[in-house]
């Protein structure tokens, strides 16, 4: 214990003096639980822990924060837990678009309407990746080759964001793809490097190391404009050198995965306002910018009506894809 307390002390030493007093009317009265709907080390877990460390560092609230991992069932465990905690404003659920996508395609015992949306605070981009030594240099080469022989597309999980995007590529590119679901994007990346699949649609951070190492390369980015300029990744290219998919003739202008923050259902407007303010303060810190940059995400802040309409829009689109694929649960 002695050792631990010394460690904690040294961490406390790092804490800066400057603190922002929280001004919302409602204040938490007991320790706050951050529920990460992912296992330790997952993207959502890292986000929850980054937010936790920023709040602790700047003392944005008087109450201690504990991160709890409930990543079972592709995150369903965490959402079900959130649903069961209705009325408890001391539990904050960190998730993704899974919150509204999962109930649509599998019989999970929750829906996003059981939770109170707080904000979407970061977005992950998607890219189309192929093996380094693949013969195609452009998206149209890829589509041509894929039309000739059925390509194998890997991705994380089933009927989830990766597969939805795969089905969109199929439809818009007029090709047929065999989708192979793996546990994670990292696994799909290794399968591509080993030549067991032909392509995948990983987030930048999931395949960055392998791009640098000359094992795989991106063909295009599913975003409206090119990714922000950063340091060069390989000897000649950086993120902004990747064309958008629209530039390359694959008409999918935008596909992103938001990281979302929720409270359980049946909380008061005061309580919602407190957490919205809290997330805003977190986003204003340099540590947050640093985290976003290092994990290659896009900084966003959607709350209130904006967030609601974002969900509606995404849901409408997903319903269409799911209906075409026959995924909708009866």
């Amino acid at each position, binding site marked *: 214990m002695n050792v631990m307390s010394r460690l904690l002390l040294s961490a406390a030493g790092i804490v800066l003096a400057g603190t922002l007093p929280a001004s919302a009317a409602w204040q938490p009265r007991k320790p706050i639980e951050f529920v990460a709907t992912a296992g330790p080390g997952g993207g959502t877990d890292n986000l929850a822990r980054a937010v936790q460390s920023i709040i602790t560092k700047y003392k944005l609230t008087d109450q201690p924060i504990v991160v709890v991992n409930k990543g*079972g069932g592709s995150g369903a465990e965490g959402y079900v837990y959130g649903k069961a905690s209705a009325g408890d404003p001391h539990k904050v659920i960190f998730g993704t678009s899974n919150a509204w996508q999962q109930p649509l395609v599998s019989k999970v015992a929750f829906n996003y309407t059981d939770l109170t949306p707080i904000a979407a605070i970061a977005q992950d981009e998607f890219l189309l990746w192929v093996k380094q030594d693949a013969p195609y240099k452009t998206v149209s080469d890829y589509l041509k080759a894929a039309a000739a022989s059925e390509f194998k597309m890997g991705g994380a999980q089933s009927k989830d964001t990766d597969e939805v995007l795969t089905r969109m590529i199929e439809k818009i590119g007029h090709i047929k793809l065999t989708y192979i679901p793996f546990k994670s994007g990292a696994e799909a990346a290794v399968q591509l490097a080993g030549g*067991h699949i032909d392509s995948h649609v990983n987030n930048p951070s999931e395949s960055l190391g392998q791009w640098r190492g000359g094992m795989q390369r991106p063909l295009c980015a599913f975003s409206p404009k090119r990714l922000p300029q950063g340091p060069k990744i390989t000897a000649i290219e950086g993120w902004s050198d990747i064309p958008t998919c629209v530039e390359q003739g694959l008409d999918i202008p935008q596909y992103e995965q938001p990281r979302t923050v929720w409270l359980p259902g049946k909380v008061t407007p005061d309580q919602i306002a407190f957490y919205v303010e809290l997330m805003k303060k977190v986003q204003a810190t340099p540590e947050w910018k640093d985290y976003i940059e290092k994990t290659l995400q896009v900084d966003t802040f959607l709350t209130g009506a904006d967030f609601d309409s974002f969900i509606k829009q995404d849901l409408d689109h997903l319903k269409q894809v799911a209906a075409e694929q026959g995924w909708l649960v009866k």
Partner: protein
Amino acid sequence: MENLHELLHGFTIAVTMPHLALMVIGVLLGILVGVLPGLGAPNGVSLLLPLTFGMQPVSAIILLSSMYWGALFGGSVTSILFNIPGEPSSVATTFDGYPMARDGRPTTALATAFGSAAFGALVGVVLITFLASWVARVALAFGPPEYFAVYFLAFASFVGMGGAAPIKTVVALAIGFAIAAIGIDTVSGSVRLTMGVDELVKGVSFVVAVMGLFGIGELLVAVEEEVHARGVSSKIDWREVLRAVVRLPRHGIALLRSAAIGCWMGITPGGPTAASFMSYGIARRFSRRGQHFGTGEIEGIISPETADHAAGTSALLPMLSLGIPGSATAAVMMGGLMIWGLNPGPMLFVDQKDFVWGLIASMYVGNIVAVALVLLTVPIFAALMRIPFVIIAPLIVIICVVGAYSVSNSYLDVIMMLGFGVVGYLFKKLFYPLAPLVLAIVIGDKAEDAFRQSMLLSKGSLGVFFANGLVTSLVVAGLALLLLPLGLQIAHVLRKPGERKSIAPDSEDTTRQKVRVT
């Protein structure tokens, strides 16, 4: 030789006073989380992670990896002393470690486990040092069919062993598979076998199952039969620790074989748990004293422990060189790498030489620090065996209850743990084997995923398992291991047609007889 030069440079980074201090802190915390079931290295590492954001990456990874070593060692302690495996990979250690401890030799059991674990870890580090690039290439050759073949091989090496009642073995194995299938299915995304309990969507945690099956189950058997541990000498005996460690080289073949299995399973996707089971199964089959396994055999401890640590160590290599985490802890560390601004991948060895070689050097030093610290604690842990049963029993109950709860803060898990306790008791009483059940819970769903991914790739054809030399040889080796004992048995029966094959009592039965204090 370039690697050797880099390694020496790495030592100059790793062996400094602050880094040694971090190693000691990490190892001690690791032992603590390892000893407490329910808390594991992933918990400890993710808890320390925010504290490392301000550190140099190399210092941070030394702290975290030392914690990992400590937890690997600590996980064996409760397996041996109380039959409660703290980590999935230390289940196989209970098979002989616990009987030996009950037999009045907890010091020998612990020291043997730690000594062979350190050997396994060192072999793993040597492999990383000299064969890093080769190993990375090997790992890439594994697609879904090869994954499946590796899991199949692990099952075959373990399940093929003759048990008391084959049908009971089959039932136990199938129940394990069914438990592994509960929750969301990776390949289809659908919810399976929750049987109306919403919370079961998260699946059944392995830790919850083994704490019930082994911990509570064994407690019930012990209280019923009034079996108490044979008196442990009250003097703290350091010589016994030393003697056990010095005796290890006599089992050189078992050590080397287990280290090889461990490294192989660490590089390929098998992982430490499958490695320890496979190593135990193979040792039991090929050891001269194979029939004594399960009663407290030295090699029954050496084999799983060496393989576990060899695999646990070499599993860090795919993380660094490819960015695939070989274990849950490696996944957390990878998250850390990202936040420290490093990107795991092939270029890490080129871009971040100081970091990589500092880490590798710290693996040598960290493991030595860990084994030294852990050997020092042996007599203390062994002394726990002297606590009277009436006191230790409620403590074990509390540890299992809190452990089951802390896996995912769920009360349902606690109730399931108690249920598994009753099942564990019944199964032990009636000689249903627990090991195949546990192995199926741990790797059953992974094997199923790999199989179904292969079927997607091959459009439903089984030919994919004979598509190339690698997968064919894995499958053939698995089939051979599975069918060999069967063939031998048939030959045996044919040779002596008049003699009705008597069914040997289950090994666990003999244990109980031997240990019983009258």
